[in-house]
């Protein structure tokens, strides 16, 4: 008879198990999302994250053990970011045509994203460290964590806020845009990428390739603008 304890000790020590669980969990979550007609609440990232977190708790697995397997998937974020150049190039005529609306929306969106978060935090009396984590929340994780260091915030807490922003934005963008009766998919995608960086971009690609392209542009542009604006606006907003 197979000794399940021995088998578990062997499997839990190798990256294969958690890599497989991550892939299988995502495939199941994606199937659920498809079965729900890509309903925004059935977000595949959210479902997989909840499922895997429950499995980790039940199996008493420490995160570093999990990440030893999952890192192979995490690693692909780099080449995927580079790959965003392909849809950008493919939709270049639309992108050129939309240059003026894009730049205007970028400036308006970036300023509102930073100021609304910081002012609300001030109003609700949040701690300094939480307020600082909120300021760069719409930038992609790598940029936001760099900004957090620069403004003497906490990069780990910032990463938590960034991912929460990504998932909640990906969930509310579709119902919000429908409520606003906005049918311009370039505008909808651009907003999703600006506010919810990569996770918003993933959602936009799920809805429409043009929306995904504009989301990818917004993700890049707002990453840069947030890195510039947060250190400039923060003393003024907190003062």
């Amino acid at each position, binding site marked *: 008879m197979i000794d399940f304890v021995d088998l578990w000790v062997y499997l839990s020590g190798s990256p294969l198990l958690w890599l497989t669980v991550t892939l299988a*969990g*995502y495939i199941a979550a994606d199937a659920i999302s498809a079965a729900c007609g890509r309903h925004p609440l059935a977000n*595949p990232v959210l479902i997989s*994250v909840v499922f895997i977190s429950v499995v980790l708790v039940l199996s008493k697995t420490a995160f570093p053990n*999990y*990440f030893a397997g*999952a890192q192979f998937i*995490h690693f*692909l*974020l*780099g*080449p*995927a*970011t*580079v*790959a*965003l*150049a*392909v*849809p950008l*190039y*493919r939709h270049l005529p*639309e992108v050129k*045509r*939309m240059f003026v*609306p894009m730049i*205007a*929306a*970028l400036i*308006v969106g970036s300023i*509102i*994203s930073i100021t*609304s*978060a910081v002012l*609300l935090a001030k109003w*609700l009396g949040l701690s300094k460290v*939480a307020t600082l984590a*909120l300021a760069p929340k*719409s930038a*992609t994780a*790598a*940029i936001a964590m760099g900004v957090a260091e620069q403004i003497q915030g906490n990069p780990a*807490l910032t990463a*938590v806020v960034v*991912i929460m922003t*990504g*998932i909640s934005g990906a969930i*509310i*963008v579709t119902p919000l845009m429908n409520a*606003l009766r*906005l049918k311009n998919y370039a*505008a909808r995608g651009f907003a999703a990428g*600006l506010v919810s960086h*990569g*996770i918003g971009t*993933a959602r936009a690609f*799920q809805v429409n390739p043009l929306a995904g392209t504009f989301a990818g542009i917004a993700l*890049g542009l707002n*990453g840069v603008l947030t*890195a510039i604006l947060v250190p400039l606006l923060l003393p003024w907003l907190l003062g």
Partner: protein
Amino acid sequence: MLHAFAILLCLQLTGEALVRATDSPLPGPVIGLALLFVWLVARIPLPQATHETADGILKHLSLLFVPAGVGVVQQLPLLGAEGWKLAAIILVSIALSLAATAITFAAIAKFMQIDSEAPEGKRR
């Protein structure tokens, strides 16, 4: 597929190297994105499968955020007693910024009469 993936990795690597060399605040992959874009615009030949490979990765972009998302769940205690307030601020702030961004974009596109998304019957 193999060549295309190697190109993506090479450009990311070049991006990372440029970031280290110039102390840029941008992440290496974003520089890699810019490099690939310039490559495409310059019409320098690329392996045939580059487009398919890029589309293939981007089709499952959501999957790539799962490990980071699981990491965040582990870090949730960091939020402490402020968790609910923080979540409420995030929700209000993103709703405001999503609406402001999309409305600005759509209104200016409409004003300039370049909103191609308008259904037939509307002027371009």
